[in-house]
């Protein structure tokens, strides 16, 4: 498009993304949204006003230079667009798929009502997919600095931190307890939302940067964090282990067979391939009628997985309304299209026993919304004498997670009251050289927020290690007579001779 773009000259309607037909996709694990073609991407890129002072960039937890990458798409410089995203985010194909853009970049886009915002997420995915298809990788020349960084957890926080530390020249090792890397991207998010090939490609990119992945390693138990620093020669450590300790329902009957956490369902199905049982050995409880409790992204994933496993009726039980639901708007929309039944303002009070220790149904109570609570959302209150029962043979709870206790059990790191790791504003923990970020610090959040935390911790770690952040402003003036612009301070350290 030549000339200046204005709100009147841009294509008015947001370019829709092709999707698998709801009827068909409810029966398979193939990806739901098919992605933009080149033409579609170019058309959508034309809708960006390329604001000189964009609102979307601060709206992004990792501050991707959004107008710049979109400008490159319009100029058909896709590789350039990928490099622009790559400056802030190594996982374009992942984030384009799983970020809640409507509450981040797209939520503050100046193209707004009555128009729909620029489909930034879809454009990011277009670029990320193109990079995978064309096997592009940002492999800058990296000068090794001889410093070693250990990262605990290979999920989004760990991956983002690993990328930044590797680019800074550190020798990075990522430890993962499962037999495959990727964390929640691998065990949690199902194939139809994030195909395994995308995760593999992103991990391969990290490996090209020199990052080493060590699976089957439970840090804390196989070796401790103090051991990593004192004995194993790591100069800094990042903890990105995730929250991962599912909150239980705490209602009668919650230990009946057929009642399981969304984490268990999703891990069995995604990581252990229970959807292909018995060709794969791990089973998953199959129900005719399934109730999923909760309405976050994990709940949406659980609902849609159950549908694909062959459940006839899949119900979503949530005590508030659709407005308060924390899931991505698109996921709720997709779930509805596929035939998930939503029961808003409904709360379970008991799981019913069939007499043989299996779940046969749920007793629920209707709710109404009262005054706003601490989270700013209106508090749901049960309506008296509104209890009712309905049949289901599998109950999945997706009502959040608590802090995983392993790191706390095996180190002296300072934790908060609820067991999450305490950090300062740079994400440094109470132990020198040890940083933490993601769900294990904040409690359950999104993939991109975890990645943002990983990057923030990386900045802190670079400062701690005496590595100058190439992005940071160069400090002017002098300190003890040394011109700060001239010097790149390297931390003085003893190199153990037994390396």
């Amino acid at each position: 498009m030549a000339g200046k773009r204005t709100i009147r000259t841009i294509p008015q309607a947001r370019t829709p993304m092709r999707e698998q037909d709801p009827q068909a996709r409810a029966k398979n694990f193939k990806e739901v949204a098919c992605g933009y073609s080149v033409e579609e991407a170019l058309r959508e890129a034309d809708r960006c006003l390329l604001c000189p002072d964009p609102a979307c960039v601060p709206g992004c937890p990792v501050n991707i230079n959004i107008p710049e990458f979109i400008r490159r798409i319009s100029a058909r410089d896709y590789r350039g667009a990928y490099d622009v995203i790559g400056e802030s985010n190594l996982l374009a194909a992942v984030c384009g798929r799983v970020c809640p853009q409507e509450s981040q970049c797209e939520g503050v886009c100046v193209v707004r009502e009555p128009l729909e915002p620029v489909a930034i997420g879809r454009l990011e995915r277009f670029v990320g997919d193109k990079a995978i298809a064309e096997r592009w990788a940002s492999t800058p020349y990296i000068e090794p600095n001889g410093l070693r960084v250990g990262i605990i957890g290979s999920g989004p926080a760990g991956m983002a931190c690993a990328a930044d530390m590797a680019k800074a020249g550190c020798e990075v090792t990522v430890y993962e307890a499962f037999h495959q890397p990727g964390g929640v991207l691998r065990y949690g998010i199902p194939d139809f939302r994030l195909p395994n090939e995308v995760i593999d490609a992103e991990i391969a990119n990290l490996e090209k940067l020199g990052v080493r992945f060590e699976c089957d390693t439970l840090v804390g138990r196989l070796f401790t964090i103090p051991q990593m620093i004192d004995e194993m020669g790591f100069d800094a450590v990042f903890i990105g282990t995730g929250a991962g300790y599912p909150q239980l329902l705490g209602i009668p009957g919650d230990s009946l067979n057929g009642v399981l956490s969304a984490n268990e369902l999703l891990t069995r199905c995604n990581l252990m391939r229970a959807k292909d049982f018995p060709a794969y050995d791990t089973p998953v409880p199959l129900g005719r009628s399934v109730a999923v409790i909760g309405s976050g992204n994990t709940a949406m994933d659980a609902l849609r997985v159950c549908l694909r496993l062959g459940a006839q009726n899949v119900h979503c039980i949530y005590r508030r309304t659709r407005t308060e639901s924390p899931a991505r708007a698109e996921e709720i929309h997709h779930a509805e299209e596929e035939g998930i039944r939503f029961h808003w303002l409904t709360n379970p009070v008991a799981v019913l026993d069939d007499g043989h220790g299996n779940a046969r149904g749920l007793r629920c109570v209707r709710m109404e919304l009262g005054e706003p609570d601490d989270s700013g959302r209106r508090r749901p209150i049960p309506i008296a004498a509104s209890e009712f029962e309905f049949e289901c043979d599998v109950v999945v709870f997706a009502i959040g997670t608590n802090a995983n206790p392993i790191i706390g059990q095996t180190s002296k790191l300072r934790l908060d009251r609820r067991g999450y790791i305490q950090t300062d504003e740079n994400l440094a923990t109470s132990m020198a050289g040890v940083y933490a970020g993601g769900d294990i610090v904040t409690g359950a959040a999104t993939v991109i927020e975890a990645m943002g935390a990983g990057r923030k911790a990386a900045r802190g770690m670079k400062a701690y290690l005496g590595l100058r952040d190439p992005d940071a402003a160069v400090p002017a003036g002098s300190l003890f007579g040394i011109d700060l612009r001239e010097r790149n301070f390297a931390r003085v350290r003893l190199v153990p001779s037994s390396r």
Partner: protein
Amino acid sequence: MTAGDGGGAGGKFEIVAREDYSDLTYMLEVRHPMMARAARPGQFVIVMSHEHGERIPLTLADFDAQKGTITLVIQAVGKTTREMQRHCQVGTRLLSLVGPMGIPSAVSKAKRVVCVGGGLGVAPVFPQARAFKQAGAYVIGVLGFRDKKLVFWEDKFRKVCDDLILCTDDGSAGMKGMVTKGIEVAMKGYRDVDEVVAIGPPVMMRACAELTRPHRIKTMVSVNPIMVDGTGMCGGCRVKVGEQIRFACVDGPDFDGHLVDFEDLMGRLRRYAADENKAMQRWTESCRMGGPGEPGARDWKALAATPPESAIDELVLPDPFDDAQGG
């Protein structure tokens, strides 16, 4: 990244020794120097033998920091454990071996301790017996097996126990009767027993706990519920302990036997019984056909490509919960 071609040479964890104690019970010694150093009594590992396999928890039966190996004793009762019995030979590798997991057993300052192992539970109670002995306790071992043919590790226990009571259901070795009878004998012989550690099938552990409850003797048990990740993430291994729900993988696996709700534990262990039978049946059939079942010649891709069967035929199997648990 982890590479694996189905448990053959592709895994990372080499099996360096194997011994078969009976038709069902076998011992694997696996090289993992770091784990051998880190392991403590009462901890467990999760094993995955090949890419299509499931993750199964196994309590560590022994570990040797000098040799750099850990020891697992396994009973072939389900699909995975039978498959491992066939394929896990010296020189082959496990795809995945992660651990040591769980909180190590608290080796208390008890002076007189009875360490009870039933069936496969004999193996995991060994490190605890040894640790109590090293801590200066007078250790009485009570080992229970169905019959003489199944007895293993008697010598190993004699080395760390001050007294050993061997029980078999049919009296073909040691005294006749279950381990509970052995505990009664021990309590009669030694009136000052401070602590009992019992590992075995849930029914056995419950019986032990009930036996010691009137005497108010501290009784620790090691539960082994169904697990997936072993890191606290899935909640599948939750058990009722007193008023609380605890996760065996990160809050256990050792709990106070007087507080564990064994009914709940046994009920939850039956969750996948039908699926387990199905997997087992499929596997036995594939073995009969030869081909994929032959050692070293498994064709998992072909197996994966075959359409899943819809009908589950009744297949009578030994109840896996009678024998499999406690290991």
